[in-house]
């Protein structure tokens, strides 16, 4: 299935070219990737971890890991940016789960998501980001809260339930409904473009 809101065809072709260069051990490809996605990757690490030092380490690890195992990225399965962000988020969440003190509070996690922020460079997926932000604005507050706690806070659905003082079944439902609605909105916004 082709997802219309996904990165443009041009970006995907560029992803394939960069992936090929990584496979042929062209180190300048990593430099180029950092120019393109360094800001969003570091932004993701900061979003989950807050601590600048830890965030930098995680963001660097994401690029180095891709360099070491370029085959881990498959252009047919998604964008390079999405891949790097996924790797970064997973590494950051692993840290949060190991270290209780890194856990962000519910309020600090949820306050930033839909707040517009100054863009570092306009070409770093600005259109996609605005679409996602707009879509998130359409979710109910409780859906957003559950998604943010799980996705950026690394909470399990049981922890979400406990933290929000709701039954576990409700936490599962909010996650499911939130993702379903988000998917729906993103597909619609992609079709509208």
């Amino acid at each position: 299935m082709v997802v219309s809101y996904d990165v443009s065809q041009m970006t995907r072709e560029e992803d394939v070219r960069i992936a090929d260069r990584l496979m042929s051990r062209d180190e300048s490809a990593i430099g180029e990737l950092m120019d393109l996605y360094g800001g969003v990757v570091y932004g993701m690490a900061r979003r989950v971890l807050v601590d600048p030092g830890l965030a930098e380490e995680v963001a660097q690890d994401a690029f180095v890991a891709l360099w070491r195992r370029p085959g881990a990225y498959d252009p047919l399965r998604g964008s390079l940016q999405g891949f790097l962000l996924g790797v970064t988020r997973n590494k950051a969440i692993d840290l949060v789960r190991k270290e209780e003190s890194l856990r962000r509070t519910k309020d600090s996690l949820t306050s930033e998501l839909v707040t517009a922020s100054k863009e570092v460079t306009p070409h770093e997926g600005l259109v996609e980001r605005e679409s996602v932000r707009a879509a998130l604005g359409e979710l109910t507050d409780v859906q957003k809260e559950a998604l943010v706690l799980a996705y950026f806070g690394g909470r399990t659905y049981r922890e979400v339930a406990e933290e929000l003082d709701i039954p576990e079944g409700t936490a599962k439902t909010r996650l499911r409904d939130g993702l379903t609605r988000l998917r729906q909105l993103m597909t619609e916004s992609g079709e509208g473009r």
Partner: protein
Amino acid sequence: MERSHDELKDLVAAYVIGAVPPDEVRVVRAHILTCDACMAEADDYAAAMDSLALAVAPAPVPAGFVDRVMEQVRPVEKTPAPAAARSGARAWRSWFAPAAAGAAALVAIAVLGAGVVDARNDLARSEDALAQVIRSDEAVELKGTGGTTAELVPTNDGAVFAVAGLPEAPGSDIYQLWYMKMACRRAWARSSPPTASSSWSWP
């Protein structure tokens, strides 16, 4: 107790977002893999989750960020660095750590030449053997008894192994280093090197 389809279906979204607790992950994954409807649902959730990542605003990377990454990705022979430059827990890995896994299914343990060598004598001839060990995050540092230290670094073709402070092998024994494919590493790691001489002293 067997869980119903509906119970497991309720967990598909949580699974995709990584919010299923460890004690339930296996059962949910097994279900998704065998249920076409839940698999299709998981694909949809995954696409939605990917878009969540895109909501994050970029942040200016700290000064030196790019250089620090490039130091780690440049061909290893270009970046020798003193041992002291390596830091803390990340640099120090235990004997059996899977740290070398990044070297594309290659190395378990390594050589200064193929087959069996008298490593100690080879190293004694080469005072700068340790300096030749390329510093990279792929390196596995090893610590033996009595202050023996070694470092194993995967390369494209095999690996470099350097050791310092190795005691004299008793009698006519020699040290042996074996080069093995990655697939053998696990079996090997469970016991002493199966064919090593008695003088092998790790861990």
